[in-house]
């Protein structure tokens, strides 16, 4: 598939349906289409990490990043998602956009490193659960899995407040991390019933180079 312009990618991603009844415990909010389009466009234009690549999307939800990756030129993308309702929306989105090279496996991301998926992919993308009281540090566990699954690079979003910690951790895992952009976005606004007192959170867009692992 020919590569699309940034604006076109965003337009397509606006058609990706979101979670029907988002589950707060699983931190189900889609990456906003504008942010997703900018991230994916950057991965290709600056690092050539998508075109022709084998891509993985951890915690793929309704498929925003999986579908975006393929629109930007990924040859094949596999998303992993634990929640059956999200998987249903993913499938519908992929069908409606008539994409043959995106697919989803229902699985727990945390169990993937001990499987044959280790080092299977070129590029791993994710918008991980940031981790709330119930699952503190979940984003770091996702990231650690990503580092084990990719051979070239891992792209992820993390709260800016954890930047120093992430820098240290990724070195322990043999990955070289770099913050590509600082974003602000409003997670609460993604939950229809939770409009009061919502405020933007500061998020870093990271690239982790794992090519030495």
């Amino acid at each position, binding site marked *: 598939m020919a590569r699309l312009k940034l604006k076109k990618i965003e337009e397509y991603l606006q058609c990706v349906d979101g979670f029907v009844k988002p589950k707060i415990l699983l931190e189900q909010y889609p990456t906003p289409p504008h942010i997703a389009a900018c991230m994916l466009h950057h991965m290709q234009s600056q690092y050539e990490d998508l075109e022709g690549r084998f891509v993985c999307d951890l915690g793929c939800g309704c498929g925003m990043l999986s579908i975006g990756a393929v629109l930007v030129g990924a040859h094949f993308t596999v998303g992993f998602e634990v929640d059956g309702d999200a998987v249903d929306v993913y499938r519908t989105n992929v069908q409606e956009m008539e994409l043959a*090279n995106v*697919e989803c496996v229902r699985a727990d991301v945390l169990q993937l490193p001990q499987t*044959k998926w280790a080092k299977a992919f070129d590029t791993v993308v994710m918008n991980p659960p940031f981790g709330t009281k119930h699952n503190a540090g979940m984003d770091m566990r996702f990231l650690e899995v990503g580092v084990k699954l990719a051979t070239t690079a891992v792209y992820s979003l993390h709260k800016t407040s954890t930047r120093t910690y992430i820098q240290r951790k990724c070195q322990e895992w043999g990955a070289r991390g770099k913050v590509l952009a600082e974003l602000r976005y409003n997670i609460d606004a993604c939950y229809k019933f939770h409009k009061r007192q919502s405020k933007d959170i500061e998020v870093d867009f990271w690239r982790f180079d794992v090519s030495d692992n």
Partner: protein
Amino acid sequence: MKLSTYNFLTSMAIKGVKVGYPLKLTINKKEVVETEFNATFVERLLPKLDWSAIYSAAQVVELTDDIPAVQPENIAENEQLMQKLHHLLFEIDVLDGQLECPETGRVFPITDGIPNMLLNEDEV
């Protein structure tokens, strides 16, 4: 589920399972979709393929005329075989069926094209 994905799926995470691979594939319903052939992509995938699993998948979809039982040497130089491999791996979409753990018999259903590899807490 494309057969390229089948190549990577295991039941290793089940408590007590040693290898958990290859899973026994049963297909009730499949579809053939056309996708772009990318020789470099298939070539780069070769070292990650388990030929015995690939061949058993070829048996299930009755493509053993196209896919040899043993991986030939210098396969990347054989454009025709690479195209057939592409067809097997990326153009056959399993819509309904199941994957069975070779050691425990635990069944993972494939529904509407999506394999469900989730395990219960007491299985891991």
